[in-house]
């Protein structure tokens, strides 16, 4: 068995831990969690969350340690977010997961620019993702997800997959069927699992009217598949990452339109999009739900169909 960094649970350590949980290898999982330093009673620590995750994993009839849907957003506009593990649940991931021009091999896993691994700094976020990935892999788990989904208050926005992606066709169908059960919810998300959407459509499946797909960059699929996905009834448009000057990232101008430098940052993003040949363009200002108008998300808005939305990443 590999040893893990004892100073803290590093990303490779978390990858090992997630691999053990998804392989249902309780022995390895227990050993890895035992190696995490700290006191299990110290609230908010990795050890604290890991032990509670393990207790649930050993007896999945117990109460879930983490809420399946997390509340996010701003003061006036909360939205519900669903996440699962990045990478493990991303069959369409390419450069975002393995790095530009890198081989899709285990050694390069998590070496790309995928922002979701940054969320692993927060142990509760990592274990929520892991719990959700475990749940989606069994019918009993999916029933739990369904019952929590049906309890979301009326007329809310749900962001389906902040981290992670549709892992297979059965899971994509599961979510689309659930979406149809809650026509009051506005559901949108990002995906690189393009082939799954095409496979589902090929089966004659009708996508729900209240789901909007953002076709995100970094996929392993080429332009031919992308063009087909862009033609689906559920697709809003592309969501891409474009290289911008490092200063915009360092200054956090990309995080909120009220942050200093945001205007300049967005101008650069729009310029990059123009150079790439996108006719209709929108620069994401970073603060989700506060980008176009009150109570609307650009990525989840029908009005932005056909518009390419972009965020900046540093070179």
């Amino acid at each position, binding site marked *: 068995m590999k040893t893990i960094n004892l100073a803290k649970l590093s990303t490779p350590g978390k990858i090992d831990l997630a691999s053990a949980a998804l392989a249902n290898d309780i022995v390895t999982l227990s050993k890895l969690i035992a190696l995490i330093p700290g006191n299990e*009673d*110290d*609230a*908010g620590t990795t050890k*604290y*969350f890991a032990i*509670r995750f393990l207790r649930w994993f050993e007896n999945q009839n*117990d*109460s*879930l*340690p*983490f*809420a399946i849907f*997390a*509340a*996010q*957003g*701003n*003061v006036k506009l*909360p939205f519900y977010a669903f996440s699962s593990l990045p990478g493990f649940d991303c069959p369409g991931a390419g450069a975002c997961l393995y790095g530009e021009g890198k081989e899709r091999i285990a050694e390069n896993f998590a070496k790309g620019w995928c922002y979701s691994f940054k969320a692993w700094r927060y142990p*509760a976020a990592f274990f*929520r993702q892991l719990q959700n990935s475990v749940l989606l892999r069994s019918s009993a788990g999916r029933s739990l997800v369904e019952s929590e989904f049906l309890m979301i208050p009326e007329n809310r926005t749900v962001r389906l997959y902040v981290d992670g992606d549709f892992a297979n066709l059965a899971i994509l169908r599961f979510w689309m069927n659930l979406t149809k059960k809650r026509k009051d919810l506005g559901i949108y998300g990002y995906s690189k699992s393009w082939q799954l959407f095409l496979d589902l459509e090929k089966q004659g499946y009708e996508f729900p009217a209240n789901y909007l797909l953002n076709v995100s960059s970094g996929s392993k699929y080429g332009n031919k598949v992308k063009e087909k996905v862009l033609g689906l009834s559920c697709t809003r448009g592309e969501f891409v990452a474009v290289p911008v000057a490092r200063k915009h990232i360092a200054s956090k101008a990309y995080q909120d339109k009220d942050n200093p430098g945001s205007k300049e940052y967005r101008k650069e993003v729009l310029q990059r999009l123009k150079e790439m040949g996108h006719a209709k363009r929108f620069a994401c200002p970073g603060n989700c739900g506060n980008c176009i108008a009150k109570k609307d998300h650009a990525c989840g808005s029908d009005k932005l169909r056909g518009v390419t939305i972009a965020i900046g990443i540093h070179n």
Partner: protein
Amino acid sequence: MEKQQIRALLGQLISVQSLLRKMEETGFDWEKIQEINDNLRLIIIDLEKAID
């Protein structure tokens, strides 16, 4: 319930209290609410286990 378990629960509650105090200073934040919810959820699970 043993004294050690009570002490651990107290620590968990103090951590929730500090999250609320932090939000009093920095303003309302859904992410913080989620963190508080997560902590309360685990405290309830720990209490349920202790009672069982």
